[in-house]
């Protein structure tokens, strides 16, 4: 707990093995729980809760935040708090934009190779339909699906 009146004490081996085993078990729990369909939001919250529990174990025990000077824990917490504020405030913004910015995906849809294929196939098909006034249908139809 105190870092100044003695030299660094090594922590017992059993702590490292116990925490490691717990992390292994929690990994199994998160994989299994994700196979159960609780609804998208509930699954996300459950998976993030388990991840946060695992991350806390790593930070508190393996990174010694529980045993070292509390200054390190404070600095790390401030960083995590800032990150949380960053994401939460961004979400407030981005989830309320639809009225002013509803073409967010259009540019990517026009440029991605996947959509180029689809657009080309659609254009070729349209051209074929137009040319098929006299019945013959031979649109190339590249593998769009």
């Amino acid at each position, binding site marked *: 707990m105190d870092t100044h009146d003695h030299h660094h004490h090594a922590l017992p081996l059993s702590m490292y093995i116990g925490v490691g085993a717990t992390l292994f078990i929690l990994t199994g729990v998160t994989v299994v729980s994700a196979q159960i369909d609780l609804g998208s939001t509930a699954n996300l919250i459950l998976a993030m809760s388990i991840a946060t529990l695992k991350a806390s174990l790593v930070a508190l025990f*393996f990174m010694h935040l529980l045993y070292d000077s509390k200054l390190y824990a404070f600095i790390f917490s401030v960083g995590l708090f800032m*990150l949380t504020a*960053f994401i939460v405030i961004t979400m407030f913004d981005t989830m309320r934009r639809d009225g002013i910015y509803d073409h967010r995906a259009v540019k990517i*849809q026009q440029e991605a190779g996947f959509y180029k294929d689809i657009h080309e196939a659609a254009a070729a098909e349209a051209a074929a339909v137009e040319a098929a006034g006299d019945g013959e249908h031979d649109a190339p139809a590249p593998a*769009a699906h």
Partner: protein
Amino acid sequence: MEQVVAIAGEEHHRGHPALAHHFHDMEQQHESIKLGVWLFLVTEVLLFGGLFCFYAIYRAWNPEMFTQAHQLLDVKLGAINTLVLIFSSVTAALAIRSIQLDRPKQTAMFLVVTLLCAATFLVIKYFEYSHKIHAHILPGELFAYTHLEGVANPHIFFSIYFAMTGLHGLHVVGGMVFLGFVLIRTLQGTYSSEYYIPVEMGGLYWHLVDLIWIYLFPLLYLVG
């Protein structure tokens, strides 16, 4: 007298050879360096934080697409890599413990195991990446996988997947370089219970790499 000697810029007559002249003692040096490492780790969290925000925005905009696109990832490989990284975190922590107990040979052994785990992680990642590259499951406009019918914008998920796992993979490589350096210095007999801050720096960095993966794995492979 001590101060006069220090001001004159001469060598310390007291203390460990690794003690820099601007620190009072090893303890102060150790705590100061560790403070710097934690500040660095915060900058790393914020670096990945930008990508986590990227993920949050696009998932909120395309919940259906995330659910379907993430099924192209192999949960088994992701889970194995998670266990490999957690195991390597245990061995990295034990490497520090061993040097605190003045057992440099044990430290070297644990560092070797950590490095082997890191290499295993990268090999599995390589197989995952090469499978995706062959199937044209690529980020952004390179995406040309055509077997996801009725899913709008799946390339966005893979932009996020490659950006986040790619940056994480670079951190794994960086961690291996630093831990490799620490291993060599350990074998040279540089470290002891009095001076082992580089081992601890490598360990802390390695735990952060593990910590980020602990979030990446469920976000990308499980709940997409």
